[in-house]
Every structure is written in structure tokens, then in C-alpha cells.
């Protein structure tokens, strides 16, 4: 991945995606394990149906990109995976979402417990109004309130290193997280997320507020993180989806404005020989 996004012209996406996918050594025959699975998931805001019977898997330790035009429910779908939609009054779902086969919307499952295993990085960097150190330590202390200081320091450092932001912040741990640049803030938020050791990381357009250099750093980071975490990413950037993801879910908005899953496949397939005309038009930039 040496090319920057700005030098990649749209027509060359297919070829580009192919090289990325083959470099990662994905073979269609590889045995894949379902980590997250949306099973005929419909999502309602009051009476309005935002998602219509979406079914697709997120494989363990793979990056799955969700693409589609604005308003088709990508973010809503993503926020369903850690039950963030619960915070919006009047929402409910039909169908199921399972994490390792367990229904996360089952009556006896607490959304708070789900979110520990399914972390989230948001579109706009949202560091807490606290020091860089406390930004990371907060999550760790949620689960280990009495962790000794030295161990906590180690965990904070490890998380910052994993999010490749340690070198940027190691000398200013007491400074507020909001004082960092946008890209550093976003990596801080990723560090914050992985500090609590989730199994899945949801990323909602994590680079849309960042410049190309910061974007590239985060993409490299994602490739690194994939070794340990299952990642779902919503993106509007076709090149980004092609570069970083192993699988891609294509969504669109139906005439009744509910979002539906059009196609799900390996990223290479989606970008080179999609089965649906809409997908082909969309990924080649003919509309959308």
C-alpha cells in the first residue's frame, strides 16, 4: 500500500483492489468463522423502518466494509451491532444479531455487556474532555477499578502503541486529548477502544474528517489491528474499502427508504465482478 488515495484514479480501482486482496492471501476456499451475524435484521425508528431484513456475516479477524449511498442505513446497521441505537428513544429491531452465536438482543443480555465486546470508533474524533492518559485509562478502569498504577500505566502504553499513537503522545500524557491533531485524536480514540480489549471494532467512517496522510495511517493501523480484532467499517471512500477490507457489503435504499443489503462478497469480487448491476455502477462511480 504505497500509493496515496489522491493518486488512485477511479477506473483503476478494480486492478488496485485485486493486488491488495491477493497480497493479503485471501482465498475463497479459506475456512471462515462467523463472528457477528445479522440475521434478517430489521430496524425501526418508531414506525419508520430504517433497515429491511439485512442478512450478512462479519468474519473473525477480517475487515468487512459496508458501502452504499448516503441515507441507506449503513451507520444504523453498524450501530445495531453494539446496540448504540438503544440510546435513541423509540427504536426496536426485528430479526437477530448474534455474536459468536449468541443473540445480543436477547432479553437477558445487557447492552452495556455487548459494548464491552463490540467497541466503536466514530466518524468525528471524540476524545473525552480529559488528559490523554485518562482517555485510555477510563475504559480500563471501568473493568478493573482497582488496577495498580504501574499495571494501568502499562496497559495505557500498550493500547497507545497498538494504535500507533504512542510516539505522538508519550511526552504529553497529562495534556488534554482535545489538544491533539484530528488524525492523532482519531488514533487516540482507536487506542481507547482497543484498551478495553473488545473482540469486534466498529468504525463509522473513521477517516471522513481526516486528511489523506492521517487517513493512510489509520488504514495501515486497521490492517495491523485485523490480526487481533474483527473490524467492520462504514465508508464512503470506495478506494478505502478496496484497499483495506477483505469483505464488502453493498447496501442501498429501497423505494420505501428502508436500507437493504444488495450484495455481500469478498471485496475483490465486489470490485471486479459484482453480481448486481447496482453494485457495479456504484463501485465504478457511475452514480451514487
Amino acid at each position, binding site marked *: 500500500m504505497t500509493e496515496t488515495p489522491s493518486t488512485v484514479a477511479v477506473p483503476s480501482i478494480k486492478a488496485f483492489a485485486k493486488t491488495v486482496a491477493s497480497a493479503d492471501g485471501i482465498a475463497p476456499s479459506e475456512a471462515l468463522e462467523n463472528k457477528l451475524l445479522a440475521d434478517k435484521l430489521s430496524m425501526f425508528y418508531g414506525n419508520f423502518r430504517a433497515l429491511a431484513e439485512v442478512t450478512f456475516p462479519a468474519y473473525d479477524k477480517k475487515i468487512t466494509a459496508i458501502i452504499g449511498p448516503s441515507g441507506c442505513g449503513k451507520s444504523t446497521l453498524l450501530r445495531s451491532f*453494539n446496540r448504540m441505537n438503544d440510546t435513541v428513544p423509540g427504536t426496536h429491531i426485528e430479526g437477530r444479531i448474534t455474536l459468536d452465536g449468541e443473540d445480543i438482543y436477547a432479553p437477558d443480555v445487557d447492552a452495556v*455487556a455487548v459494548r464491552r465486546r463490540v467497541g466503536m470508533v466514530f466518524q468525528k474524533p471524540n476524545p*473525552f474532555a480529559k488528559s490523554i492518559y485518562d482517555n485510555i485509562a477510563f475504559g480500563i478502569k471501568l473493568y478493573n477499578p482497582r488496577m495498580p498504577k504501574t499495571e494501568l500505566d502499562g496497559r495505557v502504553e500498550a493500547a497507545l502503541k497498538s494504535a500507533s499513537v504512542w510516539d505522538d503522545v508519550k511526552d504529553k500524557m497529562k495534556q488534554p486529548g482535545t489538544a491533539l491533531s484530528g488524525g492523532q485524536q482519531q488514533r487516540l480514540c482507536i487506542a481507547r477502544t482497543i484498551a478495553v480489549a473488545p473482540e469486534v471494532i466498529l468504525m463509522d467512517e473513521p477517516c471522513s474528517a481526516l486528511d489523506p496522510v492521517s487517513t493512510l495511517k489509520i488504514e495501515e493501523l486497521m490492517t495491523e489491528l485485523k490480526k487481533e480484532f474483527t473490524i467492520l467499517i462504514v465508508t464512503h471512500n470506495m478506494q478505502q474499502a478496496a484497499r483495506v477490507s477483505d469483505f464488502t457489503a453493498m447496501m442501498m435504499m429501497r423505494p420505501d427508504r428502508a436500507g437493504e443489503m444488495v450484495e455481500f462478497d469478498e471485496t475483490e469480487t465486489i470490485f471486479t465482478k459484482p453480481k448486481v448491476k447496482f453494485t457495479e455502477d456504484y463501485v465504478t462511480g457511475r452514480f451514487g
Partner: protein
Amino acid sequence: MAATTTSIPAQPIEIGADPSVRRRQRIAGFGRAGLFLSLIIAIIALIVLLLDITNKIGGMVVYGYKIDPLTIVPSIPLEELTEPELLQIAKDNVPPDRQAAMPEEMGMPLDEMSKDDLINTIYNETPNPDTLTARPLETLADQELVAVLDNNITDARFNQLNSEQPFETRSREELIELIESEVLLESVVKTWPLFESLFSRPAIEEQIRRDFPDSDSEFRWWLTPQFILNDLTTRPETTGIRTAILGSILMVMTTIAIAVPVGVAAGIYLEEFAGKSRLNSIIQTNIYNLSGVPSILYGMLGLAIFVRALGALTSGAAFGIPDPPPNGRTIISASLTMALLILPLIIINTQEAIKAVPQSLRDGSLALGATKWQTVWNHVLPVAAPGMLTGIILGTARAIGETAPLIVVGAAAYITSDPRGPFSSFTVLPMQIYSWASLPGETFRNIAAAAIVVLLVIVILFNLTAIILRNRLRKSL
């Protein structure tokens, strides 16, 4: 050339010759001037207010005695005087027409009278014969001064003064001052405003020499350390507002202690946990309405509930405190009333402050698996705290300056004992100012002005503390 006159000119209009721009800029200029004028009016009003108050806190005064000093000092019995001395006194004090009538009535003029006749004449012909031989205060010995004091004030007051500082250890000047203030009731008979006293002092002194030739006069401040530290008395010259200051501070502290936790908690609940329901929007509307209810109504409410219905609790009788006041007219009643009064203010400001916290902060915390409570406590409240403090500042300033509800709830207009706790009778500064301002007499205006300055300083101190705290909170974010 016709093309250049169409709606889109090929040639740009010459800069500086565009009438529409000039017109719009002129309107902008008027608007700006209007805004500036409003600011000037506000500032002038404030300055006039402050000058008016300042003008009364000091100035030239003339003193006079309510009691004639000669009536309280020991006098030499006429019998002990020599004949020439008696003759001199008679000549000085018997009215001339009576002196002229003496030879006819008594058979001889004053010069020829015997000692006894002179004494009789003096007793019969002068209005205050005892004071004729009175010895001025300045000539008395220390023990005599103490005796004068002892004879003319109550034993209780005498003992109190003695226990404050034994008379033996007081200097002559102090003793004379004591007599002047305690017995003679030295008081200010005329005052001049501060600025006049400062800038046209010679004219004032001239007037004093003309109108009050024998009286003491001086330039004095009404706002003095004694004024702040003294007990309340009925005399403006010596009164103090310590009791009122302590009452105000104690009442405001108690009010804050009640209203802030309740108001902040209610605000947090309404904003973060209550959700959206019809009931909640009704509650919300009513909180806004309550913040506009006239304060006297809160006073009526406080009187009915805290003073009357809950009198046993608010007087402290139910808690077995020794020597409880006979009714609920105590600091705790006033504080509860004030707390009700400022609750809407604190709730609304808390809600506004919480509303201003970006949703993304809550999302970030929730996404880590924090509970709603942890999110609110760790991320929402610290960010909202400075804004919430603004509401507390406003509430405090309102509580410390509010008078109407306290008049109803029963702040005492005259009380000399300091408040010792929430179950004490009390007075507060605005109450003192109100009662002094309604009394006749220039000097009461002066001490009312001095008390206003003290009240302003206390309000400023409270606000300053809160602002410093707020800035610290902001910095720590």
C-alpha cells in the same frame, strides 16, 4: 455600448460609486450606533447608581447632644461658694429685668445681698440653678467620670461595658467618649454628601461656624470597620451590621446547601434520564414558569408552610435544641424559601449546561461499555460543571439580595444577637437596608448606603469565588 447597460455589466461599477453599498453601510452604521448607545445608557445608569450610593457613605457631619452635659455632671453646692462668686453667678444668670426689679421686691440690689439671700435669689430667679455650678466633663477626675456613667446608664449596661474592658484600664478620653455616646447620646444633627464635603469643604465649614458655633464637626465615613463589626443599635452613629452580615452569609450558605444539590440533581435527571414524555414536558414548562413567579409569592408559601405548618421543625423544637425560638421565623425557614425561589434558576441552568455537552462524548463513553450513570458522572458532568456554576452564581446573587420573601417569612428588623445556627432568629442585610431606608432622618440614609456597599461587596465576593472555581474547572478540562 448597449451591452454594458444590461443587468450584468461588462464593466465593473466604479468602486466607491455604488449607491446601494453606501446605503447598506449607512444602515449598518445606524444599527451599530444604536447598539453602542444602549451600552452607554446601561453603563451610565450603573455609574449613577454607584455614585449615588457612594455619595452617602461619608461626608461632613455636625454633632450635637440629645442630653445637656451640664445636667449629668456633679455640681458644687451653692453654699460652698464665697459671696463674690455667688454675686458673679447671680449677675450672669438672673435676667436683667429681674435684676432691675430686685431693689423694689427684696429691698436691696444684688450687690448688697447677704450670702443666703443670693442663694435664694439664684434658686428662685434662674431656670436651672443646679447646672450653674456644674463642672464640665473635661475637669472631672477619672473616678468621677465612671461615677457619672454609673449614675446615668442601667446597671446591666454598666457591667457589660466594664466586662468589655474594665473602667480602670480605660483612658480619660475613652471614658469621656463613652459618656458622650452612652449618656449624652451624642448624635449627628446635620450631614453633607460625600462629594460636596470633598470639593466644597470651606463653604461647609463656614456654614457650620455660622449655624452650629459650639458643636463638634468632622469629616466622617459611615462605612467603617466598627460599622461592619458592631452590634445593631438604634443609633445610626454607633450601630453596626455584624448580625445582618452573619445572617446573610449563614442564610445564603444554607440556601446553597439545600438548593444546589436538589436543583442540580433534578436538572441532571430531567436532561439525562427522564426521556421525553407528556408529563415531562409539562414539568419542564412549569419550571420555566416558576422562575418567573414574583418572589413575594414564595414568601407567602414559606410563611404558610415553613413558618406555620412546619413551625415545630423549623424552630428546632422538634430536634430538642435548647431554648428554641417561639415560632418558625428562623434561618432555616428563610433558606428553604430562598431555595425554592432559586431552584428553577439552578435547574434550568443545569439543563442548559448539560444540553451543551456534545452527544459524541456520551457515545464514546457508552461505546466503551460504560453505564449511563458512569457516562453522566465521568464525562457529562465535568464538561457541564462550568455552565452549572453559572446558574449557581445567579441563584446565589438572587438569594443574597432578595428582600420581599424574607419580610413575609419573618426576618427581624431589629435584632442584636448573632445567629448561632439554622434555628436562630435572624436578620439579613437587605432587610436592614430596607428598614433603615424607611426610617426618617438623614443619617439612616447614610448607614443604609453603607450597608448597600457591604452587600455589594459580599455579592461580588461570592461571585468571584464561583467564577474562579469555574475557570479552574474549565482549565482542568
